[in-house]
């Protein structure tokens, strides 16, 4: 099974790697870049835990071929901090302690960040759309929604 060379830019760091051409982005993020904040939940684009931002858009990384992400700017949860300060979404999640086991949390923070990067004052429908497809089994939804509401009120 042959490999191809591929150059990816994740959180501002470019790296050339040799990978199978059918390798999904999530495995490159976790194994080749060592960024384990992006979580594999289903591998089927059904749970949202693998979400990353690619060129400003939220994308699920579990079925997305890594080779298709060359020349794109990929941001994972580790790359959200600005000069080591939490971004405003992370800050709200911190303030509200908006996580239980936390397995789903990085994917949710990514989606909410992508939403607020485009629209500082989203409607509740837009928030719902952003959270569509994000599953949480611990039931952290209520506190997550309170954290998001605090961003809109502010």
């Amino acid at each position, binding site marked *: 099974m042959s490999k191809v060379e591929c150059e990816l830019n994740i959180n501002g760091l470019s790296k050339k790697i040799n990978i199978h051409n059918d390798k999904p982005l999530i495995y490159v993020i976790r194994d080749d870049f060592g960024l384990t904040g*992006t979580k594999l939940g289903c591998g089927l684009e059904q749970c949202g835990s693998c979400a990353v931002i690619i060129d400003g858009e939220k994308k699920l990384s579990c079925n997305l071929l890594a080779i298709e992400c060359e020349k794109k700017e990929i941001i994972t949860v580790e790359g959200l901090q600005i000069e080591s300060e939490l971004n405003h979404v992370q800050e709200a999640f911190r303030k509200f302690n908006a996580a239980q086991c936390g397995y789903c949390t990085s994917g949710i923070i990514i989606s909410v960040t992508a939403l607020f990067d485009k629209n500082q004052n989203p409607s509740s429908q837009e928030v719902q759309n952003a959270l569509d497809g994000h599953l949480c089994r611990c039931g952290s939804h209520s*506190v997550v929604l309170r954290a998001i509401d605090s961003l809109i009120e502010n």
Partner: protein
Amino acid sequence: MNQFNSGPSVNTYNKLSHWFDFSNPGILKVYSGKIDIGQHISSTLALITSKITEIKYDQIEIIKLSTDISPNEGITASSLSVANSGSAIKAASIALKIIFLNYALEKLKIKNEDILFENGVIKDKNSNKTISYWDFSKTDEFREVIIPEIFDENSLKKINYENNQKIELKTINEIITGKYKYVHDINFPKMLHSRIVRPPSYHCKLIKVNEDFKKRLVENEIELFVKGSFVAILSLDEFLVIKFLEIAKNNIFWEEIQQLSNNNVFSSLEKHEKESLLVKSGGEAFYEEIPEKKSFDDPKIESLSTIFKKSYLMHGPIGPSASCAIYNDKEFTVFSHSQSIFALKHSISKYFDIDSNLVTLKFMPGSGCYGHNGADDVAFEASVIAKGYPERYILLKWTREDEHSWEPYGSASLNKVFGAINDDGEIVYWSNEAYSDTYLSRPSDIELNNFISFKFLTNNFVKTKSKPKTSAHMGIHRNLDPIYNFKENRLVKNLVHDLPLRTSALRTLGAFANITASESFLNDLASIKNIDPFDIRINHLDDERALAVLKSLKKEMDFFKPKEDSFRGIAFSRYKNSAAYCAVGVELNVTDDLEIKLNHAWISVDAGEIAYEDGIKAQVEGGFIQAASWTLYEEVIFDSKEIISKDWHSYKIIGFDNIPVFTTSIIDQKGCAYLGVGEVVAGPTGAAISNALCNALGQRIKTLPFTKDNITKELLN
């Protein structure tokens, strides 16, 4: 505050050094036998310690459970984390503080009013001399302290504390920045990634592995591990393992020894061989003759009977189970997110027939688990594989399909309920017969068969019959005994054999089904006599704390005007009739398409002294959301060949689009025992939704989940 009971853990671990490590200056490390599965136990325990000892919360670290250093506090389950570990640590903190104060006053030769006490350091205001907990920990006095089993009022008076609640979760910063490490993220040099090649169903013998496939594995430097019918593949490259797992499915052949049964599980619950036990007041089950159900011909008494049904439910953690193990120099070290860390240690040593000291289990976080999910199985499997590759770390992960299809589910169940109410609104007779498979098949050193892979390793597929547990509120009969003062109860636990799916502990065990059934039925009895749902409950309760919780719920609900076209329902329970009290109110709408939309949820809870308010809130709101998901959407689908619910499309759970607004009230009982809250809300949630739905439709729906299909079937009947 009369006295404080230190709880069961202190019976075994009664020295301060069992709980506290002061070896790092300025840092207090605290041991606990409970694991953090997202219920915020580490933050809660640190907060309890901080409140009592007056050491800053930020100076306190909770040591992750490891079987070589941590106290064995049993399983992290049954809402006992704070009740057991919290009470033990509170007791250790009280003992420490009292003796430390005495010691410091004596050493400094000063009085209480002459001291400044900050961050674990006592300072003489006059001389500026100091003594800290860290100094004290080096003394014989510290080593000799025996933590009392009970603190009396006099001792408690010496340790005034604020019930402060404002903290930041210990884990939150790492979680939101992606730095929190789960088992899945372990990475050791030369570590082998592994996946298991599963047969189609529970009872399949390995016939053969295609020879060409074996060659391809060798060419790609992939290891094939086969023992009996247990098959796994391993590689340094995780993605390669995943690729070959797909290929393996067409190259490994199995003989199916027995198919799954696709008979209607509810009729199997009634018809199959069963063991029936009588449950008595107090919640214990007895092998005694079951009395006949009474009948009533008094015209002043009306009776009613109903059968409630609940399907198989899954734990369904968002991250599939994982474990990392190494076998090195005859010893195993296993990283696991199991709730049963100590039982796993003993089970693994039993399987390999070695001294249990040669097995160390270390807790590493996983995705939230809600009971006995795949965590134990995967840890056992990782150690089996590790034995085959000495000195190599093996990181074994279950796939989404593994987790959905192979975990031990929460059993399907039936509740046959019958009751009678007189003209005064008094419930004069209550019968509840619960039918279910076991909720208790956690692995132990005497039940290795409870590991799903044990059968495949030994090629022994004979089903062992589980035995009914008899202790109070254990398993099927949890919360079967109603907390109300009904005149006469007849309670029967039926453990049904030979049901199709593998089952074990899912959050609340039988309590969810029992409370959902009985709190729904209570409303139905009340409505015969036009009695208000709050009144029927209040009239049959005399426990002040239960009444306070119901009254608090009523007040909170009355504060909000119902939304147009919405319907409300309430329910109440005290978990195991001995843990926290909880009343739940729900307001919902039913769309024309029979979809249920949750508008508002009210939760009133009394969990004793509030250990950590946000922790309790997270547990009860999270528990509500999970139970609402069970109630509205969830059922494991299967046929004779396989589990069909293999992913989140074939097993729907609640999403962000159906989360109600919450009004959560927590009653603080400062000085009272901690009562766990992890499971308290589930039963009343199911029943409150059921009761609101009944109000909306004018008819009781008796089959969970309340999907359009189930509702339509019952409406048409």
